[in-house]
Protein backbone atom coordinates (compact mmCIF):
# COMPACT_ATOMS: atom_id res chain seq x y z
CA UNK A 1 0.00 0.00 0.00
CA UNK A 2 1.58 3.22 -1.14
CA UNK A 3 0.05 5.56 1.41
CA UNK A 4 1.25 3.34 4.28
CA UNK A 5 4.81 4.38 3.60
CA UNK A 6 4.07 8.07 4.00
CA UNK A 7 6.33 9.31 6.80
CA UNK A 8 3.57 11.54 8.20
CA UNK A 9 1.40 8.49 8.82
CA UNK A 10 4.18 6.70 10.62
CA UNK A 11 4.85 9.66 12.88
CA UNK A 12 1.15 10.06 13.62
CA UNK A 13 0.84 6.44 14.71
CA UNK A 14 4.09 6.40 16.67
CA UNK A 15 3.90 9.75 18.45
CA UNK A 16 1.26 8.99 21.12
CA UNK A 17 3.10 6.07 22.73
CA UNK A 18 6.53 7.54 22.01
CA UNK A 19 5.65 10.85 23.68
CA UNK A 20 4.04 9.10 26.65
CA UNK A 21 7.11 6.95 27.25
CA UNK A 22 9.48 9.86 26.72
CA UNK A 23 7.68 12.00 29.30
CA UNK A 24 6.86 9.33 31.88
CA UNK A 25 9.69 6.85 31.44
CA UNK A 26 12.81 8.40 29.91
CA UNK A 27 12.68 11.84 31.53
CA UNK A 28 11.93 10.45 35.03
CA UNK A 29 14.84 8.02 34.69
CA UNK A 30 17.16 10.90 33.79
CA UNK A 31 15.72 12.99 36.63
CA UNK A 32 16.62 10.27 39.15
CA UNK A 33 20.23 10.45 38.07
CA UNK A 34 20.22 14.26 38.14
CA UNK A 35 18.61 14.31 41.61
CA UNK A 36 21.56 12.34 42.98
CA UNK A 37 23.66 15.50 42.43
CA UNK A 38 21.22 17.85 44.19
CA UNK A 39 21.19 18.67 47.91
CA UNK A 40 18.28 17.41 50.03
CA UNK A 41 15.87 19.82 51.68
CA UNK A 42 14.07 19.13 54.94
CA UNK A 43 10.61 18.71 53.41
CA UNK A 44 11.65 15.59 51.51
CA UNK A 45 12.24 17.54 48.31
CA UNK A 46 15.28 18.88 46.56
CA UNK A 47 17.19 22.02 47.51
CA UNK A 48 18.83 24.57 45.19
CA UNK A 49 22.33 24.13 43.79
CA UNK A 50 24.46 21.11 43.07
CA UNK A 51 26.54 18.81 45.27
CA UNK A 52 28.70 15.70 45.17
CA UNK A 53 28.09 15.02 48.88
CA UNK A 54 25.37 12.39 48.26
CA UNK A 55 27.64 10.41 46.00
CA UNK A 56 30.24 10.28 48.78
CA UNK A 57 27.58 9.21 51.31
CA UNK A 58 26.49 6.35 49.11
CA UNK A 59 30.02 4.93 49.09
CA UNK A 60 29.44 3.99 52.72
CA UNK A 61 30.96 0.51 53.32
CA UNK A 62 27.79 -0.32 55.29
CA UNK A 63 26.09 -0.78 51.92
CA UNK A 64 28.48 -3.53 50.84
CA UNK A 65 26.88 -6.43 52.75
CA UNK A 66 23.45 -5.29 51.50
CA UNK A 67 24.68 -5.13 47.93
CA UNK A 68 26.25 -8.57 48.27
CA UNK A 69 23.04 -10.01 49.80
CA UNK A 70 20.96 -8.51 47.00
CA UNK A 71 23.23 -10.07 44.38
CA UNK A 72 23.44 -13.55 45.88
CA UNK A 73 19.72 -13.70 46.69
CA UNK A 74 18.88 -12.68 43.11
CA UNK A 75 21.39 -15.16 41.69
CA UNK A 76 20.18 -18.02 43.88
CA UNK A 77 16.54 -17.24 43.08
CA UNK A 78 17.33 -17.28 39.36
CA UNK A 79 19.13 -20.64 39.56
CA UNK A 80 16.42 -22.30 41.67
CA UNK A 81 13.65 -20.94 39.41
CA UNK A 82 15.40 -22.23 36.29
CA UNK A 83 16.05 -25.63 37.88
CA UNK A 84 12.33 -25.95 38.69
CA UNK A 85 11.05 -24.38 35.47
CA UNK A 86 13.06 -26.53 33.04
CA UNK A 87 11.48 -29.89 33.95
CA UNK A 88 8.05 -28.22 34.14
CA UNK A 89 8.18 -26.78 30.62
CA UNK A 90 9.70 -30.04 29.38
CA UNK A 91 6.67 -31.84 30.76
CA UNK A 92 4.23 -29.22 29.44
CA UNK A 93 5.62 -29.43 25.93
CA UNK A 94 5.25 -33.21 25.85
CA UNK A 95 1.65 -33.61 27.05
CA UNK A 96 -1.43 -33.26 24.87
CA UNK A 97 -2.90 -29.92 23.80
CA UNK A 98 -5.73 -29.97 26.34
CA UNK A 99 -3.58 -30.96 29.31
CA UNK A 100 -1.08 -28.30 28.27
CA UNK A 101 -3.76 -25.60 28.45
CA UNK A 102 -4.77 -26.81 31.91
CA UNK A 103 -1.18 -26.78 33.16
CA UNK A 104 -0.59 -23.32 31.73
CA UNK A 105 -3.71 -22.02 33.46
CA UNK A 106 -2.68 -23.65 36.75
CA UNK A 107 0.67 -21.87 36.58
CA UNK A 108 -0.73 -18.50 35.54
CA UNK A 109 -3.57 -18.29 38.10
CA UNK A 110 -1.42 -18.02 41.25
CA UNK A 111 0.74 -15.58 39.29
CA UNK A 112 -2.29 -13.37 38.65
CA UNK A 113 -3.46 -13.35 42.25
CA UNK A 114 -2.40 -10.31 44.17
CA UNK A 115 1.32 -10.05 44.92
CA UNK A 116 0.82 -8.92 48.53
CA UNK A 117 -1.69 -11.66 49.17
CA UNK A 118 0.77 -14.30 48.03
CA UNK A 119 3.34 -12.94 50.46
CA UNK A 120 0.70 -12.76 53.18
CA UNK A 121 -0.19 -16.41 52.46
CA UNK A 122 3.40 -17.46 53.15
CA UNK A 123 3.46 -15.30 56.23
CA UNK A 124 0.48 -17.08 57.71
CA UNK A 125 1.71 -20.50 56.51
CA UNK A 126 5.07 -20.00 58.22
CA UNK A 127 3.67 -18.24 61.31
CA UNK A 128 4.77 -19.84 64.63
CA UNK A 129 1.09 -20.75 65.20
CA UNK A 130 0.64 -21.61 61.52
CA UNK A 131 -0.09 -25.02 60.00
CA UNK A 132 3.30 -25.67 58.38
CA UNK A 133 5.32 -24.93 61.53
CA UNK A 134 3.05 -27.21 63.59
CA UNK A 135 3.25 -29.98 61.01
CA UNK A 136 7.05 -29.82 60.86
CA UNK A 137 7.27 -29.89 64.68
CA UNK A 138 4.96 -32.92 64.86
CA UNK A 139 7.15 -34.67 62.27
CA UNK A 140 10.24 -33.73 64.33
CA UNK A 141 11.75 -32.06 61.29
CA UNK A 142 12.39 -28.81 63.16
CA UNK A 143 12.96 -28.18 66.90
CA UNK A 144 10.01 -27.16 69.12
CA UNK A 145 10.87 -23.47 69.26
CA UNK A 146 12.01 -23.01 65.66
CA UNK A 147 11.00 -19.79 63.94
CA UNK A 148 10.51 -20.13 60.19
CA UNK A 149 9.79 -16.46 59.59
CA UNK A 150 12.21 -13.53 59.61
CA UNK A 151 15.07 -15.48 58.15
CA UNK A 152 17.08 -15.00 54.98
CA UNK A 153 15.99 -18.47 53.85
CA UNK A 154 12.36 -17.34 54.07
CA UNK A 155 13.17 -14.39 51.83
CA UNK A 156 14.72 -16.76 49.30
CA UNK A 157 11.73 -19.11 49.46
CA UNK A 158 9.19 -16.35 48.84
CA UNK A 159 11.36 -14.80 46.11
CA UNK A 160 11.36 -18.15 44.31
CA UNK A 161 7.61 -18.45 44.82
CA UNK A 162 6.83 -15.05 43.32
CA UNK A 163 9.36 -15.26 40.46
CA UNK A 164 8.76 -18.84 39.32
CA UNK A 165 6.08 -17.98 36.72
CA UNK A 166 8.46 -15.38 35.23
CA UNK A 167 10.86 -18.25 34.59
CA UNK A 168 8.26 -20.73 33.35
CA UNK A 169 6.47 -18.49 30.82
CA UNK A 170 9.42 -17.45 28.60
CA UNK A 171 10.87 -20.97 28.80
CA UNK A 172 7.52 -22.43 27.81
CA UNK A 173 7.39 -20.15 24.75
CA UNK A 174 10.80 -21.53 23.71
CA UNK A 175 9.96 -25.17 24.52
CA UNK A 176 6.80 -24.97 22.41
CA UNK A 177 8.95 -24.38 19.34
CA UNK A 178 11.46 -27.09 20.25
CA UNK A 179 11.51 -30.13 17.97
CA UNK A 180 11.11 -33.11 20.29
CA UNK A 181 12.12 -35.46 17.47
CA UNK A 182 15.67 -34.33 18.27
CA UNK A 183 15.40 -35.87 21.73
CA UNK A 184 14.23 -39.20 20.32
CA UNK A 185 17.10 -39.07 17.85
CA UNK A 186 19.57 -38.48 20.68
CA UNK A 187 18.10 -41.41 22.60
CA UNK A 188 18.27 -43.63 19.49
CA UNK A 189 21.92 -42.76 19.15
CA UNK A 190 22.50 -44.05 22.66
CA UNK A 191 22.24 -40.97 24.90
CA UNK A 192 20.70 -41.53 28.35
CA UNK A 193 17.65 -39.45 29.36
CA UNK A 194 19.72 -37.00 31.41
CA UNK A 195 22.31 -36.61 28.68
CA UNK A 196 19.62 -36.02 26.05
CA UNK A 197 17.96 -33.46 28.32
CA UNK A 198 21.14 -31.56 29.11
CA UNK A 199 22.87 -31.78 25.72
CA UNK A 200 19.87 -31.42 23.39
CA UNK A 201 16.87 -29.88 25.20
CA UNK A 202 18.69 -27.21 27.24
CA UNK A 203 20.69 -25.84 24.27
CA UNK A 204 17.47 -26.01 22.22
CA UNK A 205 15.65 -23.61 24.53
CA UNK A 206 18.69 -21.36 25.04
CA UNK A 207 16.87 -18.18 24.00
CA UNK A 208 14.07 -18.78 26.49
CA UNK A 209 16.64 -19.62 29.13
CA UNK A 210 18.36 -16.26 28.62
CA UNK A 211 15.18 -14.19 28.77
CA UNK A 212 13.90 -16.16 31.79
CA UNK A 213 17.14 -15.57 33.71
CA UNK A 214 17.21 -11.87 32.86
CA UNK A 215 13.55 -11.43 33.88
CA UNK A 216 13.95 -13.20 37.22
CA UNK A 217 17.33 -11.74 38.12
CA UNK A 218 16.37 -8.13 37.34
CA UNK A 219 13.01 -8.41 39.14
CA UNK A 220 14.80 -9.72 42.24
CA UNK A 221 17.36 -6.92 42.26
CA UNK A 222 14.68 -4.33 43.00
CA UNK A 223 12.70 -6.26 45.62
CA UNK A 224 11.94 -4.66 48.93
CA UNK A 225 8.47 -5.83 49.93
CA UNK A 226 9.48 -9.47 50.41
CA UNK A 227 12.50 -8.86 52.68
CA UNK A 228 10.42 -6.30 54.58
CA UNK A 229 7.49 -8.66 55.17
CA UNK A 230 9.03 -12.10 55.66
CA UNK A 231 12.65 -11.27 56.41
CA UNK A 232 14.37 -10.15 59.59
CA UNK A 233 16.02 -6.81 60.20
CA UNK A 234 19.35 -8.17 58.95
CA UNK A 235 17.89 -9.45 55.65
CA UNK A 236 17.48 -6.11 53.91
CA UNK A 237 18.08 -5.82 50.17
CA UNK A 238 19.08 -2.79 48.13
CA UNK A 239 15.42 -1.99 47.42
CA UNK A 240 14.71 -1.87 51.16
CA UNK A 241 17.30 0.87 51.52
CA UNK A 242 15.87 2.89 48.63
CA UNK A 243 12.36 2.71 50.12
CA UNK A 244 13.71 3.55 53.57
CA UNK A 245 15.53 6.65 52.27
CA UNK A 246 12.37 7.85 50.52
CA UNK A 247 9.73 7.15 53.13
CA UNK A 248 11.50 7.15 56.53
CA UNK A 249 14.42 9.53 56.04
CA UNK A 250 12.66 11.59 53.35
CA UNK A 251 16.01 12.04 51.64
CA UNK A 252 15.20 12.03 47.94
CA UNK A 253 18.75 12.68 46.64
CA UNK A 254 20.18 9.80 48.67
CA UNK A 255 17.45 7.45 47.45
CA UNK A 256 18.03 8.72 43.91
CA UNK A 257 21.74 7.98 44.10
CA UNK A 258 21.00 4.38 45.16
CA UNK A 259 18.21 3.99 42.58
CA UNK A 260 20.32 5.62 39.88
CA UNK A 261 23.15 3.16 40.51
CA UNK A 262 20.76 0.22 40.32
CA UNK A 263 19.13 1.67 37.21
CA UNK A 264 22.43 2.00 35.36
CA UNK A 265 23.37 -1.53 36.43
CA UNK A 266 20.07 -2.83 34.98
CA UNK A 267 19.48 -0.65 31.94
CA UNK A 268 22.96 -0.49 30.40
CA UNK A 269 23.31 -4.28 29.91
CA UNK A 270 19.66 -4.38 28.82
CA UNK A 271 20.21 -1.67 26.25
CA UNK A 272 23.10 -3.66 24.83
CA UNK A 273 20.95 -6.81 24.62
CA UNK A 274 18.06 -4.95 22.95
CA UNK A 275 20.37 -3.28 20.43
CA UNK A 276 22.03 -6.60 19.74
CA UNK A 277 18.66 -8.25 19.18
CA UNK A 278 17.54 -5.49 16.85
CA UNK A 279 20.74 -5.85 14.90
CA UNK A 280 19.94 -9.56 14.64
CA UNK A 281 16.37 -8.80 13.58
CA UNK A 282 17.65 -6.63 10.76
CA UNK A 283 20.15 -9.25 9.61
CA UNK A 284 17.49 -11.95 9.64
CA UNK A 285 15.29 -10.01 7.26
Amino acid sequence: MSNESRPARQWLLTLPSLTWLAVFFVIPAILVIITAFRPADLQGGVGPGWTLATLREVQDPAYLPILWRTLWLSGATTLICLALALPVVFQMARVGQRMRQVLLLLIVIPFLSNFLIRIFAWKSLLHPEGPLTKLLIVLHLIPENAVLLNHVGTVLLVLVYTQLPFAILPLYAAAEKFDFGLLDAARDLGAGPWRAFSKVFIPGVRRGLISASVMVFVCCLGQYVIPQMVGGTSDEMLGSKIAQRVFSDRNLPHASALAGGLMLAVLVPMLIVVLWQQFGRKEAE
Partner: protein
Amino acid sequence: MKRSWLPAIITFGVILFLFAPLVVLVVNSFNASRFGGEWEGFTWNWYIKLWSAGEVWESLWITLKIALSASLAAMVLGTLAAYALHRFRSWLQNVHHMLITLPLVMPDILMGMSLLALFVLTGVETGLLTIWIAHVTFCLSFVTMVVLGRLQDFDFTLLDAARDLGATQAKAVKKVLLPLLLPGVLAGGLLAFTLSIDDYVITFFVSGPGTTTLPLRVASMMKTSRSLPMINALSTLLIASTFLFAALSSRLQRRV
Protein backbone atom coordinates in the same frame (compact mmCIF):
# COMPACT_ATOMS: atom_id res chain seq x y z
CA MET B 1 10.86 -45.53 24.37
CA LYS B 2 10.74 -45.30 28.13
CA ARG B 3 10.12 -41.80 29.37
CA SER B 4 11.37 -40.54 32.68
CA TRP B 5 8.76 -39.83 35.35
CA LEU B 6 10.91 -37.16 36.94
CA PRO B 7 9.60 -34.14 34.96
CA ALA B 8 6.00 -35.14 35.72
CA ILE B 9 6.74 -35.47 39.44
CA ILE B 10 8.52 -32.11 39.55
CA THR B 11 5.64 -30.47 37.65
CA PHE B 12 3.18 -31.87 40.17
CA GLY B 13 5.38 -30.64 43.03
CA VAL B 14 5.67 -27.15 41.53
CA ILE B 15 1.91 -26.82 41.10
CA LEU B 16 1.42 -28.00 44.69
CA PHE B 17 4.00 -25.42 45.80
CA LEU B 18 2.20 -22.68 43.86
CA PHE B 19 -1.22 -23.51 45.25
CA ALA B 20 -0.52 -24.62 48.84
CA PRO B 21 -0.30 -21.12 50.36
CA LEU B 22 -3.42 -19.99 48.52
CA VAL B 23 -5.38 -23.04 49.68
CA VAL B 24 -4.34 -22.38 53.27
CA LEU B 25 -5.61 -18.80 52.93
CA VAL B 26 -8.98 -19.89 51.59
CA VAL B 27 -9.41 -22.56 54.29
CA ASN B 28 -8.39 -20.12 57.03
CA SER B 29 -10.93 -17.58 55.87
CA PHE B 30 -13.62 -19.98 57.19
CA ASN B 31 -11.64 -20.95 60.28
CA ALA B 32 -12.79 -19.63 63.66
CA SER B 33 -9.16 -19.71 64.88
CA ARG B 34 -7.32 -16.44 64.48
CA PHE B 35 -3.97 -17.76 63.22
CA GLY B 36 -5.29 -20.92 61.64
CA GLY B 37 -2.88 -23.21 63.45
CA GLU B 38 -5.69 -25.66 63.90
CA TRP B 39 -9.30 -25.93 62.82
CA GLU B 40 -11.58 -24.43 65.42
CA GLY B 41 -14.82 -24.70 63.53
CA PHE B 42 -16.50 -23.13 60.53
CA THR B 43 -17.39 -19.45 60.57
CA TRP B 44 -18.66 -16.70 58.29
CA ASN B 45 -17.48 -14.23 60.89
CA TRP B 46 -14.50 -12.82 58.95
CA TYR B 47 -16.65 -12.20 55.89
CA ILE B 48 -19.24 -10.39 58.00
CA LYS B 49 -16.48 -8.25 59.53
CA LEU B 50 -15.11 -7.55 56.06
CA TRP B 51 -18.54 -6.58 54.78
CA SER B 52 -18.83 -3.86 57.41
CA ALA B 53 -15.26 -2.57 56.89
CA GLY B 54 -16.23 0.47 54.85
CA GLU B 55 -12.66 1.61 54.15
CA VAL B 56 -11.93 -1.65 52.29
CA TRP B 57 -14.81 -1.10 49.88
CA GLU B 58 -13.82 2.51 49.42
CA SER B 59 -10.33 1.31 48.43
CA LEU B 60 -11.82 -1.25 46.06
CA TRP B 61 -13.79 1.51 44.35
CA ILE B 62 -10.64 3.66 43.92
CA THR B 63 -8.73 0.65 42.58
CA LEU B 64 -11.44 -0.20 40.06
CA LYS B 65 -11.70 3.40 38.85
CA ILE B 66 -7.95 3.56 38.26
CA ALA B 67 -7.71 0.08 36.72
CA LEU B 68 -10.55 0.72 34.29
CA SER B 69 -9.37 4.14 33.11
CA ALA B 70 -5.69 3.17 33.00
CA SER B 71 -6.30 -0.02 31.03
CA LEU B 72 -8.53 1.84 28.56
CA ALA B 73 -5.82 4.44 27.94
CA ALA B 74 -3.16 1.73 27.69
CA MET B 75 -5.34 -0.17 25.19
CA VAL B 76 -5.57 2.85 22.88
CA LEU B 77 -1.88 3.81 23.16
CA GLY B 78 -0.69 0.19 23.02
CA THR B 79 -2.75 -0.71 19.95
CA LEU B 80 -1.45 2.31 18.04
CA ALA B 81 2.09 1.47 19.13
CA ALA B 82 1.76 -2.18 18.07
CA TYR B 83 0.35 -1.19 14.69
CA ALA B 84 3.21 1.23 14.06
CA LEU B 85 5.81 -1.32 15.18
CA HIS B 86 4.33 -3.96 12.92
CA ARG B 87 3.83 -1.87 9.78
CA PHE B 88 6.99 0.17 9.62
CA ARG B 89 10.69 -0.65 9.61
CA SER B 90 12.81 2.39 10.34
CA TRP B 91 15.20 3.89 12.87
CA LEU B 92 12.15 5.50 14.49
CA GLN B 93 10.57 2.10 15.09
CA ASN B 94 13.86 0.76 16.44
CA VAL B 95 13.86 3.52 19.06
CA HIS B 96 10.13 2.98 19.62
CA HIS B 97 10.64 -0.76 20.10
CA MET B 98 13.43 -0.16 22.58
CA LEU B 99 11.31 2.28 24.60
CA ILE B 100 8.41 -0.19 24.68
CA THR B 101 10.66 -3.07 25.79
CA LEU B 102 12.65 -1.35 28.55
CA PRO B 103 9.75 -0.77 31.01
CA LEU B 104 9.09 -4.54 30.89
CA VAL B 105 12.47 -5.20 32.49
CA MET B 106 12.60 -2.16 34.77
CA PRO B 107 12.22 -3.23 38.42
CA ASP B 108 9.04 -1.77 39.94
CA ILE B 109 10.88 0.14 42.61
CA LEU B 110 12.89 2.04 40.00
CA MET B 111 9.79 2.96 38.01
CA GLY B 112 8.09 4.16 41.20
CA MET B 113 11.16 6.05 42.32
CA SER B 114 11.67 7.79 38.96
CA LEU B 115 8.01 8.82 38.64
CA LEU B 116 8.13 10.15 42.20
CA ALA B 117 11.22 12.19 41.26
CA LEU B 118 9.34 13.58 38.26
CA PHE B 119 6.31 14.59 40.32
CA VAL B 120 8.34 16.07 43.18
CA LEU B 121 10.58 18.10 40.88
CA THR B 122 7.70 19.41 38.75
CA GLY B 123 5.60 20.15 41.83
CA VAL B 124 2.70 17.90 40.84
CA GLU B 125 0.79 16.80 43.93
CA THR B 126 0.55 13.01 44.23
CA GLY B 127 -2.95 11.59 44.10
CA LEU B 128 -5.38 9.89 41.74
CA LEU B 129 -3.91 11.52 38.64
CA THR B 130 -0.32 10.50 39.40
CA ILE B 131 -1.39 6.91 40.13
CA TRP B 132 -3.30 6.83 36.84
CA ILE B 133 -0.25 8.12 34.92
CA ALA B 134 2.00 5.50 36.54
CA HIS B 135 -0.44 2.68 35.77
CA VAL B 136 -0.85 3.71 32.12
CA THR B 137 2.95 3.79 31.83
CA PHE B 138 3.57 0.26 33.06
CA CYS B 139 0.50 -1.21 31.31
CA LEU B 140 1.35 0.32 27.93
CA SER B 141 4.23 -2.04 27.15
CA PHE B 142 2.27 -5.15 28.10
CA VAL B 143 -0.71 -4.21 25.91
CA THR B 144 1.63 -3.43 22.99
CA MET B 145 3.30 -6.83 23.27
CA VAL B 146 -0.02 -8.72 23.34
CA VAL B 147 -1.47 -6.79 20.37
CA LEU B 148 1.81 -7.11 18.46
CA GLY B 149 1.59 -10.89 18.87
CA ARG B 150 -1.91 -10.78 17.38
CA LEU B 151 -0.88 -8.54 14.48
CA GLN B 152 1.78 -11.03 13.48
CA ASP B 153 -1.01 -13.53 12.73
CA PHE B 154 -3.15 -10.97 10.90
CA ASP B 155 -3.46 -11.38 7.16
CA PHE B 156 -2.87 -7.90 5.77
CA THR B 157 -4.04 -8.89 2.28
CA LEU B 158 -7.55 -8.68 3.77
CA LEU B 159 -7.07 -4.91 3.98
CA ASP B 160 -6.00 -4.79 0.33
CA ALA B 161 -9.03 -6.86 -0.58
CA ALA B 162 -11.30 -4.38 1.19
CA ARG B 163 -9.61 -1.52 -0.65
CA ASP B 164 -10.02 -3.32 -3.98
CA LEU B 165 -13.70 -3.73 -3.25
CA GLY B 166 -13.98 0.04 -2.90
CA ALA B 167 -13.56 0.71 0.82
CA THR B 168 -11.61 3.78 1.87
CA GLN B 169 -8.50 3.22 4.00
CA ALA B 170 -10.34 4.45 7.10
CA LYS B 171 -13.32 2.22 6.41
CA ALA B 172 -11.11 -0.83 5.76
CA VAL B 173 -9.37 -0.30 9.11
CA LYS B 174 -12.67 0.19 10.93
CA LYS B 175 -14.59 -2.67 9.31
CA VAL B 176 -11.85 -5.26 8.77
CA LEU B 177 -8.75 -4.66 10.87
CA LEU B 178 -10.31 -3.54 14.15
CA PRO B 179 -12.95 -6.30 14.46
CA LEU B 180 -10.35 -8.98 13.78
CA LEU B 181 -7.88 -7.37 16.15
CA LEU B 182 -10.43 -6.81 18.91
CA PRO B 183 -9.86 -10.08 20.83
CA GLY B 184 -6.15 -9.29 21.01
CA VAL B 185 -6.80 -5.73 22.16
CA LEU B 186 -9.26 -6.99 24.79
CA ALA B 187 -6.80 -9.63 25.99
CA GLY B 188 -4.18 -6.89 26.33
CA GLY B 189 -6.66 -4.70 28.18
CA LEU B 190 -7.56 -7.53 30.52
CA LEU B 191 -3.88 -8.08 31.31
CA ALA B 192 -3.46 -4.34 31.93
CA PHE B 193 -6.53 -4.35 34.20
CA THR B 194 -5.12 -7.25 36.25
CA LEU B 195 -1.69 -5.63 36.52
CA SER B 196 -3.23 -2.34 37.60
CA ILE B 197 -5.41 -3.93 40.30
CA ASP B 198 -2.41 -5.89 41.56
CA ASP B 199 0.20 -3.17 41.68
CA TYR B 200 1.53 -2.23 45.08
CA VAL B 201 5.12 -1.01 44.74
CA ILE B 202 4.74 1.65 42.04
CA THR B 203 1.43 2.87 43.49
CA PHE B 204 3.01 3.17 46.93
CA PHE B 205 5.57 5.63 45.55
CA VAL B 206 3.13 7.91 43.72
CA SER B 207 0.06 7.79 45.97
CA GLY B 208 -1.09 10.70 48.05
CA PRO B 209 -3.48 11.27 50.92
CA GLY B 210 -6.95 9.85 50.26
CA THR B 211 -5.86 7.56 47.44
CA THR B 212 -5.44 4.27 49.28
CA THR B 213 -5.88 1.60 46.62
CA LEU B 214 -6.78 -1.94 47.63
CA PRO B 215 -3.18 -3.28 47.70
CA LEU B 216 -2.15 -0.29 49.81
CA ARG B 217 -5.10 -1.01 52.14
CA VAL B 218 -4.10 -4.69 52.41
CA ALA B 219 -0.54 -3.64 53.27
CA SER B 220 -1.73 -1.40 56.08
CA MET B 221 -4.13 -4.12 57.31
CA MET B 222 -1.20 -6.53 57.47
CA LYS B 223 0.39 -4.33 60.12
CA THR B 224 -2.45 -4.72 62.63
CA SER B 225 -2.98 -8.27 63.88
CA ARG B 226 -6.65 -7.57 64.61
CA SER B 227 -7.48 -7.38 60.91
CA LEU B 228 -5.40 -10.38 59.80
CA PRO B 229 -8.31 -12.86 59.51
CA MET B 230 -10.18 -10.26 57.47
CA ILE B 231 -7.34 -10.37 54.92
CA ASN B 232 -7.96 -14.11 54.55
CA ALA B 233 -11.58 -13.40 53.65
CA LEU B 234 -10.64 -10.58 51.29
CA SER B 235 -7.94 -12.75 49.67
CA THR B 236 -10.42 -15.55 49.09
CA LEU B 237 -12.76 -13.16 47.30
CA LEU B 238 -9.87 -11.80 45.21
CA ILE B 239 -8.59 -15.28 44.33
CA ALA B 240 -12.10 -16.29 43.30
CA SER B 241 -12.36 -13.27 41.02
CA THR B 242 -8.93 -14.08 39.55
CA PHE B 243 -10.22 -17.55 38.64
CA LEU B 244 -13.26 -15.95 37.01
CA PHE B 245 -11.04 -13.53 35.12
CA ALA B 246 -8.68 -16.25 33.92
CA ALA B 247 -11.61 -18.32 32.69
CA LEU B 248 -13.02 -15.28 30.89
CA SER B 249 -9.77 -14.38 29.15
CA SER B 250 -9.02 -17.96 28.10
CA ARG B 251 -12.49 -18.08 26.57
CA LEU B 252 -11.66 -14.84 24.78
CA GLN B 253 -8.43 -16.30 23.41
CA ARG B 254 -10.06 -19.50 22.25
CA ARG B 255 -12.60 -17.70 20.09
CA VAL B 256 -9.88 -16.50 17.73
